């Protein structure tokens, strides 16, 4: 089992950041790697158990299921059901914590998964830097100073 952890400080209140990231169908609106997304079976995007079906900009198809969503803790958890990445048992958590000093947000994005041992470094890099840090950077550009 590998664990990838990325964290960052976003210069916007946690409520504002949460408004963007709590939409489980909203990745294409803010994440630069994602091309389009839909929720399967016409369920609401904040219904625990719903499945988002989305494509990355390089054409990969990914299905992820929302496992937990907490507006109280600013936290959601999801699992990959299908992806071309070659990961198993992938569960990720995105969590925000208010920074009271300056009304900013501490954002944490982590994942645990299994993969082929030879690909551990590459996947840690792709997920930790490309997906998570890339997402933080996009959120900062979108929300900073507002």
């Amino acid at each position: 089992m590998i664990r990838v952890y990325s964290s960052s400080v976003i210069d916007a209140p946690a409520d504002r950041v949460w408004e963007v990231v709590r939409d489980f169908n909203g990745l294409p609106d803010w994440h630069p790697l994602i091309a389009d997304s839909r929720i399967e079976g016409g369920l609401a995007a904040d219904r625990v158990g719903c499945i988002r079906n989305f494509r990355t900009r390089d054409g990969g198809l990914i299905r992820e299921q929302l496992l937990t969503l907490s507006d109280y803790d600013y936290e959601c958890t999801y699992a990959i059901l299908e992806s071309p990445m070659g990961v198993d048992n992938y569960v990720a958590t995105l969590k925000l914590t208010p920074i009271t000093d300056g009304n900013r947000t501490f954002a944490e994005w982590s994942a645990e998964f299994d993969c082929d041992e030879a690909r551990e470094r590459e996947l840690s890099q792709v997920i930790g830097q490309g997906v998570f840090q890339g997402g933080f950077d996009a959120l900062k550009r979108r929300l900073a100073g507002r």
Partner: protein
Amino acid sequence: MGLQRIMRSTVIDAPIERVWAVLRDFNSHAQWHPAIADSRIEDGRRPDEVGCVRAFRLKDGGALREQLILLSDRDHRLSYSILDSTVPLQRYVAHVELKPVTDGRRTFFRWHSTFGTPRGQERELAVLVAQGVYEAGFKGLKQHLGQPVATSSRAALPSGTVLPAQVIVLNGRGGPEQLKLVDRPAAPPGHGEVRLRQTAIGLNFIDVYVRNGQYAGLLEPGGVPGFEAAATVLDIGPGVSHLLPGDRVAYACPPAGAYANVRTMSAEQLIALPPHVSDEQAAALALKGMTAEYCLHRLHRIERDEPILVHAAAGALGMLVAQWAKALGAFVIGTVGSEDKARRARAYCDRVIVASDGRFAEAVLQITRHGVRLIVDGLGERAREENFAALAPTGHWISVGQAGGKWAPVEAEWLTRKSVTLSRPVIFHYTADAARREAMARRVFDALRDGILQPAVTRYALGAAAQAHADLEARRTTGQVVLVA
């Protein structure tokens, strides 16, 4: 009556290891919190011992006693509760949590609590806790940590605080029972020094020789053994320009003193760790990996299909030498002491000889006919004749240890019988030069990254160093032994 819940958080411009080194000392608040006049830990207990009580006075005259009820170095958090207080906070339990900000070596600090108050004082006490305690504490801690840390002034950074530390001390020369865990604070770093939070300490046969007096010159009784560890830099002394607090490093060098969870030492021989090398891997490889490096890349150059003999091929060094020589194209014959170890060694040796009776030359000659071109030997005197017999004429014999007894004098004429080259190297001569040391370390870490070196770490707690020594001497261990602190 209901409980209030207060939370305050901030970002501190210092790596988490440095912030935590201060906060995990439950008595340190007198040094950084502006509201505290003085503080002491009751009953002579350690300030990082769960259950300890700090008794302190506020500058405004108030007095409190607080008990540490949770401390986690792994999660960088602690919890405490108020036992007695002149301030009417009831059932007060507070939590301090640190998290790393991974995109820029900063630290997220969250401080929160729940408590009750007398009726009518809810608001007043909430403001006192949120602002007077937490926000003022953030400010004081940032000042204490010397932020902003300007690059030009970082030589002046050392806080001057002595940090609590645990070390293994060698009481006297003799058996493993001479190793004892004691508290011995780590001084602030002086000129050219750093203070390290050590997480993984490599155990080597040289430590056994130091302990039993065979290498008496390397450590006096009362001193701390060990030459190898991986660590994170806590703070740096004046004159250190190549390291910053939070940097991950490893070392394999004298003087002894590695068996410690916090150590202050010269910055000169520290090796920077790449991100792909874990602390335990670094502690397992610094000394033994660099030994394998100079044996196979400097002292001897392997030729394709060259038959070589590696003793203790499931042991800490033998495993690495065998794996690396195999990758370089050698035909590797390993000796081991048991069938169990043979099973492990077969993963990277072409042939494995179970030599539990100390005899292996005949088997080597059956496999190679003329003998081997190279022997990497940690056995010493006990296997002298067997090794000589197993070596091909003009072969190279590298003696890197003497687990089987101290060498008797070697007659140069004896070597002429086979034109043998005998090398008796000491790693510290190879690593003394900075450029060479860095090149050696880089080659070891690259070999780890490329899967050539596959260390197999056996872990012991720092406090179990005596047991680790006993197991190493009795040949009960396989792979590399690391003390985790």
